[in-house]
C-alpha cells in the first residue's frame, strides 16, 4: 500500500483535515461513480433535431435572439466536419445521446431545498462542506441545470455577479449580449457549434472594476444520467483591475454506455484584470470530454489556466489565450494522466496580437497501462509586434512499454522582435532515481509514486490546497500496482 508511505505524512499533516487521508485506496466507482434514480422533471427525446433545440429554448423561456442563436448554431453543427486530427471519436454516437434533462424546477440558494437525491449526491462529493470551509461561492450543475448557486453576501454587495447563465440572460442581457458567443463563435468548431445549439447551465461571473475576489468561486459539474450530453456554457468577465479565481470540478457515474461533455468557456480579462481558471477533470471512464476554452486578455491583463485532466475516456481540450492588449500575459499549466483505455489529447494555444505580451506554457503528462497522452499546442506571433516572449515546456513520463506519448506543437512566428522557445522531453522513470530512493528504504512502488509526485509537483502547487490534495490522491489511486 502506498498510502502509509512515511514520506507522505508531513504533507498530509500540514493539510488541515484528518479526513483527507480517509478515502485513499477507495476506487472511483465507490467515491464518484455512483448514480441516483432519474427524477428529472423534463427530458428531451434521444437525438438532436430542431425540435430538441426549440424545446430547450422554450423550457428556459428565452428571448428570441437566443433561440435564433441556437438554431443558427445547429445548422453549423450539421455543416461542420468532425475534427480530422486528434483522438479517436469514431464511437461517438450523437443520435443516442439525450441532450437536455432538467433535474429540478428551479435553481436554489440553499442546499436544504434541493431534492433528497441531488443533495445526497453533493454531500457525498463533499461540496457543501467545501463551500463552508474554503469557497466564496459555489455553483452546482446536475445534468443540464445549475441546481444551486450561492455567493457570499459581502461579495454580492460589492457587485460581484455569480449565477447560472440563464439567469444572466434574463437579468443582465446587456453584459451577456456584449460577450456571449464573441470569444468562441459557434462556427469555431463542430463542438462549439453543438454547445451553442443546446447549451444549458454553466456559470456567469462578473467582477466589477477593482474588486478582488480573494477566495475562489467554484462550480461542480455532475452528470447523473446515462448516454447523456452535458453542455454547460461559462462566461467570466473580470472588469478593469479586478481579480477572480474560478475552479471547476467534475465527476460522473460509471455506465456502460458513453456520455458526452462538451462545454464552451468564454473568458474576458479587461485591462489590468487577472483571472485564474483551475480545472480538475475527473470524469468517469465512459465520458467523451470535448471542450472549447478561450480567454481574451486586454492591456496588462493576466490570464492563467491551470488544467488537470485525470478522468474521461477521451479528452480533447486546448485552453487558449488571445493576448489582445499590450503588456498582457498568459500562462497555462497543464497536467494529464492517461491510464487504461484513456486518451488525453490536451495542450494550450497562445496567440500574441499585441506588443510586449508574454506567455508561458508548462505541460506534464503521464501515461500508463496502455493509455495515450498527447500534447497539442499553438503559439502564434503576428507580424509587426515587438517585445514578444513565449516559452513552452512539455514533459512526459511513460510508465510501461505499452503506453504512448505524443507531442504536436506548432510555432508560427512572423515578427523579428520575438523570442519563442519550445522544449519537450519524453522518458520513463529514471532508474538512477528509483535506485537512489530504494537504497533509502522505499519499496519500488513507493519510490515510483514519489517520483511521479515530484514530477507533477510544480503544477500541484498552483492549485488550491484542497484540489492539490485531491489530485495527489487521484494520482496515488491511479498509480496503485503500477510497478512490479
Amino acid at each position, binding site marked *: 500500500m502506498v498510502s502509509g508511505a512515511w514520506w507522505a505524512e508531513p504533507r498530509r499533516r500540514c493539510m488541515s483535515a484528518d479526513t483527507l487521508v480517509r478515502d485513499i485506496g477507495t476506487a472511483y466507482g465507490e467515491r464518484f461513480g455512483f448514480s441516483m434514480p432519474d427524477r428529472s422533471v423534463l427530458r428531451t427525446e434521444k437525438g438532436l433535431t430542431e425540435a430538441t433545440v426549440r424545446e430547450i429554448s422554450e423550457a428556459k423561456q428565452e428571448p428570441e435572439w437566443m433561440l435564433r442563436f441556437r438554431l443558427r448554431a445547429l445548422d453549423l453543427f450539421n455543416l461542420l466536419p468532425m475534427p480530422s486530427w486528434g483522438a479517436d471519436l469514431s464511437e461517438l454516437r450523437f443520435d443516442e445521446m439525450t441532450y437536455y434533462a432538467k433535474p429540478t424546477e428551479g435553481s436554489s440558494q440553499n442546499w436544504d431545498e434541493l431534492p433528497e437525491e441531488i443533495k445526497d449526491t453533493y454531500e457525498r462529493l463533499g461540496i457543501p462542506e467545501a463551500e463552508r470551509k474554503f469557497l466564496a461561492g459555489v455553483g452546482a450543475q446536475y445534468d443540464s441545470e445549475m441546481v444551486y448557486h450561492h455567493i457570499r453576501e459581502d461579495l454580492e454587495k460589492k457587485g460581484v455577479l455569480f449565477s447560472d447563465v440563464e439567469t444572466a440572460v434574463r437579468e443582465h442581457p446587456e453584459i451577456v449580449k456584449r460577450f456571449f458567443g464573441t470569444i468562441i463563435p459557434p462556427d469555431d468548431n463542430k463542438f462549439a457549434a453543438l454547445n451553442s445549439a443546446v447549451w444549458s447551465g454553466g456559470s456567469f461571473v462578473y467582477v466589477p472594476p477593482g474588486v478582488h475576489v480573494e477566495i475562489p468561486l467554484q462550480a461542480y459539474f455532475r452528470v447523473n444520467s446515462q448516454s447523456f450530453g452535458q453542455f454547460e456554457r461559462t462566461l467570466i468577465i473580470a472588469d478593469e483591475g479586478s481579480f477572480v479565481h474560478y475552479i471547476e470540478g467534475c465527476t460522473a457515474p460509471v455506465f456502460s454506455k458513453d456520455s458526452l461533455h462538451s462545454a464552451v468557456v468564454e473568458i474576458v480579462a479587461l485591462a489590468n484584470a487577472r483571472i485564474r481558471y483551475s480545472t480538475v477533470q475527473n470524469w468517469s471512464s465512459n465520458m467523451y470530454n470535448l471542450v472549447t476554452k478561450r480567454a481574451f486578455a486586454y492591456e496588462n491583463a493576466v490570464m492563467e489556466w491551470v488544467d488537470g485532466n485525470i478522468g474521461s475516456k477521451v479528452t480533447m481540450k486546448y485552453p487558449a489565450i488571445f493576448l489582445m492588449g499590450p503588456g498582457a500575459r498568459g500562462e497555462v499549466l497543464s497536467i494529464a494522466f492517461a491510464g487504461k483505455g484513456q486518451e488525453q489529447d490536451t495542450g494550450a494555444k497562445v496567440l500574441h496580437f499585441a506588443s510586449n505580451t508574454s506567455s508561458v506554457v508548462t505541460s506534464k503528462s503521464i501515461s500508463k497501462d496502455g493509455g495515450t497522452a498527447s500534447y497539442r499546442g499553438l503559439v502564434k506571433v503576428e507580424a509587426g509586434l515587438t517585445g514578444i516572449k513565449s516559452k513552452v515546456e512539455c514533459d512526459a513520463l511513460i510508465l510501461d512499454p*505499452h503506453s504512448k506519448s505524443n507531442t*504536436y506543437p506548432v510555432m508560427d512566428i512572423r515578427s523579428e522582435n520575438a523570442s*519563442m522557445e519550445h522544449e519537450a522531453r519524453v522518458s520513463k522513470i529514471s532508474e538512477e532515481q528509483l535506485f537512489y530512493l530504494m537504497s533509502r528504504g522505499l519499496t519500488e512502488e513507493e519510490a515510483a509514486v514519489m517520483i511521479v509526485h515530484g514530477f507533477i509537483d510544480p503544477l500541484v502547487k498552483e492549485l488550491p490546497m484542497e484540489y492539490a490534495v485531491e489530485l495527489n490522491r487521484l494520482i496515488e489511486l491511479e498509480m496503485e500496482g503500477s510497478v512490479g
Partner: protein
Amino acid sequence: MTATLTKATPQRGSLAEAPEFLWTFKAPSGSNRDEGELTHITIPFRGDSGRLQGGAIHLEDHARARVFLQYKPQDPSPGRSYGAMDGETELFRTSLEIHLGPYAQLELFVLSSLPATLTREALDHCTLEEGSRLIWTDVGFDAGKGTYERNIMFTGKESELDFAGAYGAVCDTEGTYILTTRHRGPRTKSRVYLKSALKDSAHLIFKGLIHIEESAAGSDAYLSNRNLVLNDGVRAESLPQLKIETDDVVCSHGSTTGGPREEELFYLTSRGLHTDSAKSLLVEAHLSAVLDRLPEESREEVERRAFDLLGIHEGGACS
C-alpha cells in the same frame, strides 16, 4: 573492390512516379573511401518539368564512403534561360534512396542552390541497418518554392543518424522541410539540428517527427530547430513532433525562433560595427555550426554564397 558510380541515360516514356535511377553509387562490402576521398555527384535540372530524377546510394556491410551531392539548375544553353519562361516556374523533382548495410558509414553532404524559376520537390528515403551510421550535412539556398521530405528508417539495432541542416531563405522563397526519424530497431540514436535564417518575406516550415516504435526500446533521439528571423514580415513555422510508443526511451526536442538578441547586437555595435554588419555577423555565427561540417574545399565557397544571400545590405535585393 572499390566504390562505383554508374550513370544511366534517362528513359523517356517511363512513368513519372517510378524513380529512374539516373545514378547509383555503390560501395561494396568492407570498402573504405574514408581517407579524405570525396565522390562528387552533380544533379542538374534536365529541363523536363515534373519528371522524377532519382539517385541511389548503397553501402554494403562495413563499407565507408563520403559523398558530396549538388543539385544545380540546367546549364544555360544559347537562347534559353534557366528553366522557364517569364514568370513561370518549372518543377524539379528528385528522389534519393540511401541504404546502409550493417556497420556501414556514410558521410553525406548535400547542397542545393536553385533559382526562383525552379520549384523543387525532393523525396529522400534512408534505411539504416544494424550498427550503421549516417552523417548528413544538408545546405539549402533555393530561391523558389520547395518541399523537401526526408524519411530515415532505423531498421537495425544501434544504428545512428547525425543530421545537420542550414537553410537560408530570402525574398518570397517558400520552403517546407519535413524530416521523420522512424526508430524501429532497439538502441538506435538520432540527432537532428535544423537551422535557418529568414529575410524579406520568406516563409519556411520545419516539421520534424521523432517516431519511436514499440520495438525500439533503449532509443535516444533529439531534434532541434533554430530559426533566426531577420525582419518583420517573414514567417517561420516550427512543428517538432514526438510520437513515442514505448517507455524505455530518451526523446526530446527543442525549438527557438526569434530575431537577433538585443544584447548581442548592442555588444557588436559598441565595438564599432554598423547594425547591418552586426546582424550579418550574427547570421554567420548562427549557421556556422552546420557550415563548418562541410568539406574544407567547398566550405569557403558555400559560406560566401550564404552570406552574400543573407547579409544585410542597403536597399532590398528582391525585385
